[in-house]
């Protein structure tokens, strides 16, 4: 199916509530992060929200890394 519309996709197909629940915000090693709950007691780092450039060099905080909750 092709929809010819200027509307954005999420205006036509709203996201499910579960999609929002898996995304968590918190802090890891004193750095604010956005993580995804992988459901097995681990969280996966998605994005660093820190303004400190040194945090981005920390290999414990690289996106994709899984950390126990």
């Amino acid at each position: 199916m092709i929809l010819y519309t200027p509307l954005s996709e999420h205006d036509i197909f709203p996201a499910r509530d579960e999609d929002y629940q898996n995304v968590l915000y918190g802090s890891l090693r004193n750095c604010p992060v956005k993580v995804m709950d992988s459901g097995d007691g681990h969280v996966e780092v998605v994005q660093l929200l820190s303004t400190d450039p040194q945090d981005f060099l920390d290999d414990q905080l690289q996106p994709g890394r899984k950390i126990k909750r």
Partner: protein
Amino acid sequence: MNDSFQQNSQEDKGQDKSALVEKIQQLGTSSVPQPADSNIHVLSIIGQVEGHMQLPPQNKTTKYEHLIPQLIAIEQNPKIEGLVVLLNTVGGDVEAGLAISEMIASLSKPTVSIVLGGGHSIGVPIAVAADHSYVVETATMTIHPIRLNGLVIGVPQTFEYMDKMQDRVINFVTRHSNITEDKFKELMFAKGNLTRDIGTNVVGDKAVEYGIIDAVGGVKEAMEKLNEMIEQNKPEEDQVVQ
């Protein structure tokens, strides 16, 4: 240093945190940047600027409720001497964008912005909010009238409100850059430049020519300028007074 993930929630009660920090975390916003080795902090404005409506998680967004406490922390933390704002944004919520712009413009510490890739729509006021703005040669900035999607109740009132909102954007940009109001409006309402839309797509050096951005340059130029401004910003007592 705590290696485990701590979620921002009501149950999260860290012993070593001050009441203020705890409050900020409970409100679901980011924690205060800790004193660190770097005296320059980086704020990246990426994806869409998210305002009152939360976008689905697959969207890359910049949330203003995350940025504003960080900007307060940058202002308060004496170890931080300057701020670099990196922009690669498609735009987004006007009010959230203006909030971020006003916060950056009212910081007492030197600020520099770099437009990389794109600084479209509401990215324009954010870019000009810094004390000195740079654009890389290949970056583009789309200037267009503000728009609204969704259901509209009360068309004349909504039109008036949107018109005033647009004036706020124009005023902010003209106050914080060298472009004149007439020129900015001309770019904003130009026809025939964008496919099926009103506005202009301004490329790197053109943005400098029109006076929106201060100079063409990348990281090197921005860091040199920021360090220079930090030196000028140092209080008098650092110098020997006889």
